[in-house]
C-alpha cells in the first residue's frame, strides 16, 4: 500500500505539553480522521506536518519525501484547509484567488471556477462578508484547485451548522473518488467520521491511542454494562475506561472475549459509538 503521509516517532516538547513518539500513516486514496479531545495535540501534529511547528525528533514523509528537505515539491501537492479563516478579510474572493494562485505551478483555473460554482460562492464579495460556512467552502475551493493529492484539514467542520457540515463531508468523499487523493482530517466531532473515515488515529495527551481502520476500531471495542459489585481488581484491568453510577457500571473494553469469559451473561454487551470510545478512553477508570 502506497502511503501519502508517514509520521514516524515524532516528538515535540513544550513547557506544559508534550507530543511523544507519535506515529501514524495515511494510505493513498483514503480518508484518515485524526480524533481526540481539544488540546490533545491534533493541531500541533498537523502544524508539524506542514513544518509550521518544528518537530524535535522523528521523521515525516509526504509521498515518500522528507517534508522539510523537499519542502517546496511536497507543498505543491498538499491542499491545506485551516480551522478558521486565514484569507485577507478586506479582499474579495477573486483578489485572494489571484494572489494565492500565483504560488502554485499546477493551479487550475477551470477547477477553481467549477468549485466556486458548485459551492455557489460569489467572486466579488469580500471575504469578511462571507458566512462561516461560505468561508470554509472558499478555503476548500482554494485548497483543491492546484491538483493537490493530500488534503489536510484542521477541524474543518467545527462551528458549522449541520447542513454545511454534511456538505463538507460530501466534498471529502468526492475528493477520494479519485484514488490518488488522500485526506487527513482532524476533528473532535466524531459523528463526522463515524461514516466516511476509512482510518482513524486517536490522539490523547500527545500520544497515539490507536491508529487503524475505522471498521476494525468499531469492531474491537465493546461497551459492557452491569452491576458494579461484579468489578474486582482483576476485572477492572480488562477495561480501557469505566464509569460508575449508583445504578451500576459501564466499561469500555478492547478484549470482549476475556470479559465474556469472566463475566459471562451477567452483563450487557453493546457496540459503542466513536464518541463513547473517545470519552471512556480519556476518562480512564
Amino acid at each position, binding site marked *: 500500500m502506497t502511503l501519502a503521509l508517514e509520521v514516524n516517532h515524532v516528538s515535540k516538547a513544550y513547557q506544559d505539553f508534550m507530543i511523544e513518539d507519535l506515529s501514524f500513516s495515511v494510505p493513498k486514496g483514503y480518508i484518515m480522521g485524526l480524533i481526540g479531545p481539544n488540546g490533545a495535540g491534533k493541531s500541533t501534529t498537523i*502544524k508539524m506536518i*506542514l513544518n*509550521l*511547528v*518544528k518537530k524535535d525528533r522523528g521523521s515525516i514523509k509526504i509521498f515518500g519525501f522528507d517534508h522539510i528537505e523537499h*519542502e*517546496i*515539491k511536497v*507543498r*505543491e501537492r*498538499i491542499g*491545506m484547509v*485551516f480551522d*478558521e*479563516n*486565514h*484569507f*485577507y*478579510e*478586506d*479582499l474579495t474572493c477573486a*483578489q485572494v484567488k*489571484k*494572489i*494565492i494562485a*500565483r*504560488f*502554485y*505551478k499546477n493551479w487550475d483555473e477551470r477547477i477553481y471556477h467549477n468549485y466556486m460554482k458548485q459551492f455557489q460562492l460569489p467572486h466579488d464579495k469580500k471575504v469578511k462578508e462571507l458566512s462561516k460556512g461560505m468561508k470554509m467552502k472558499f478555503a476548500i475551493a482554494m485548497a483543491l484547485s492546484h491538483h493537490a493529492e493530500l488534503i489536510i484539514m484542521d477541524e474543518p467542520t467545527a462551528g458549522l451548522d449541520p447542513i454545511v457540515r454534511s456538505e463538507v463531508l460530501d466534498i471529502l468523499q468526492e475528493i477520494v473518488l479519485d484514488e490518488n487523493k488522500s485526506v487527513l482530517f482532524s476533528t473532535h466531532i466524531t459523528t463526522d467520521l463515524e461514516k466516511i473515515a476509512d482510518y482513524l488515529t486517536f490522539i490523547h495527551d500527545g500520544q497515539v491511542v490507536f491508529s487503524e481502520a475505522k471498521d476494525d476500531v468499531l469492531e474491537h471495542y465493546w461497551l459492557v454494562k452491569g452491576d458494579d459489585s461484579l468489578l474486582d481488581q482483576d476485572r477492572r484491568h480488562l477495561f480501557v475506561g469505566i464509569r460508575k453510577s449508583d445504578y451500576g457500571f459501564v466499561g469500555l473494553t478492547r478484549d470482549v472475549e476475556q470479559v465474556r469469559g469472566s463475566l459471562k451473561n451477567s452483563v450487557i454487551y453493546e457496540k459503542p459509538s466513536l464518541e463513547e470510545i473517545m470519552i471512556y478512553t480519556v476518562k480512564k477508570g
Partner: protein
Amino acid sequence: MLNLLIKDISIQLKTILFFLCFTIGSFIFLEVNVYMIIPILSAILLTVGSVGIEEKNNSEKLVLSLPLKRSTIVLSKYMSVMIYFGGGMLLAVLFGSLLVKIGIARVLKYVSFDDVILSLMITILYASLYLPIIFKLGYKQSRLYVFMMVMLPSMATLIISDYPDLTKKLVWLSYVPHKMLMFGVFLFLFMIYGISMFFSVRFYEKRDF
C-alpha cells in the same frame, strides 16, 4: 519572490493610495524635506504594514503553507524595503518637481543627491534593525519597538533636514574624498543589511506558528 512582492502590494493598495495623498499633502502643507520623509516612511510603513495585515488576518499560517521556503519570505521582505523606498522616492520626485514648478509647494526645492543618499542610508539602517525583531517576535509583540523606531528616525530626519549638507559639517570626514566616503558608508550599511538578513532568516526559520 516576485509573487510575495505582488502579494504584499495587493494587500496594501489602500495604504499606497494613502501615501499618494500624503505625499502631495506634505509638499503643500509641511515645511520639511519631503524628498527624505516619503521614501523612508513608505519603506518602513509598507514593510511593517504588510506584516501587520498578515497578522491581523491570521494569514501568516496560510503563507507559510504555500510552496515556499521560509528564507524566501524573509529575503523578499528585505527586497521589498528597497522597492518601497524606490517607489516612495519616485513618487516624491515626481510630485515634488511638479508642485515646485507650479509653485504651490511649501518648500520650493528640487530633490538633491544628498536627499537620496541620506534617506537611503537611514532606511537601510532602520530596516536592518527592525526586521530581525519582527521576524523573531512577530508583529504584535514587536509593535512597541517598531513604533519607537518609527518615531526615532522621523525625528532624526526632521533634524537632519535642517542641515542639508550634514556630511560636510563632520570635520574629520571632510578629509576623505566625498565619493569614497559615500562608497565606504554604503559598503558598511549593506554589510549591516546582509548581517541583519542572516539573523532574520535564522530567527524566522526557528519560529513555531
